[in-house]
């Protein structure tokens, strides 16, 4: 169970989503991707996309305007 960190600070939508998609393809089942972002659009569109694809996902706000999205590859 590896943890992979992905820095998407200062990246505008939809770059975080495209980066996450690329990274997830290289990961094994059960690995967790930690995506750091400060773009609030990502919370909506990354989380929605991951849910639609059927992986596990959740996020927290670390500081005001700074989020971490956790994605566990489920299949």
């Amino acid at each position, binding site marked *: 169970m590896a943890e992979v960190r992905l820095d998407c600070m200062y990246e505008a*939508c939809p770059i975080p989503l495209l980066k996450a998609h690329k990274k997830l393809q290289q990961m094994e089942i059960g690995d967790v991707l930690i995506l750091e972002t400060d773009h609030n659009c990502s919370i909506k569109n990354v989380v929605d996309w991951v849910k639609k694809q059927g*992986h*596990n996902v959740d996020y927290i706000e670390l500081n005001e*305007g700074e989020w*971490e999205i956790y994605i566990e590859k489920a299949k």
Partner: protein
Amino acid sequence: MTSKAIEELKRRRQGEFKKKNSQIPYAVIVTAISLIIYTICIKLNHHSTFWMIGLLFGITLQRSRFCFAASFRDPILVGSTAILKAILIALIVSTIGFTIVEYASIGDAGELDKIRTLGQVYPVGLHTVIGAIMFGIGMVIAGGCASGFLMRIGEGFLLQVVVLFGFLMGALVGTWQFEFWDKILISKAPTVFFPDYVDFPIATIVQVIVLVALYYVADWYDKKNNIMVM
């Protein structure tokens, strides 16, 4: 949808990052200042009411993470229409809302000219297409439309301060070039206003039906397409 591994990670990370300082006092101060400015300026003219509406719009946009850029980009780029469906619902609500406002303000349903002046009806033509393409390209590169990037500057997303300069320059060039576009395209384009052809209530109902149909098409597209499947 969450899992054990994610829950554990969340708990660990939340422990590492204690929230340093609360922003709530700033919010209270800013709210108080804007209310004071509002009460002073409302005596002069109505503009401060619009300012208040703008502030409330901003809060709604920020809390809902609503994004017009994403709504039109995501269906093509990632195949998700969740935000587009939200836009369609907003259009349905505003169509009905505007009808009520327009009826209430003119009193008599027969006076179409009054509705026309009230509901800002503009000519449509080739200039709409050119403008839409230019705006669309800019919007996706900038990572947000006019309302979205202003809201994110307020939130502290630094990249969009650069966008602000581009936006100001674009608005300036647009105003400067407007006469040119007006001469070659806008003045020749027809103004389409449905209530000219059918009754006002029928126009409203037809528009709502079309929007509902589009909603179902968007819903179907979301399930059907396989762009960016994992």
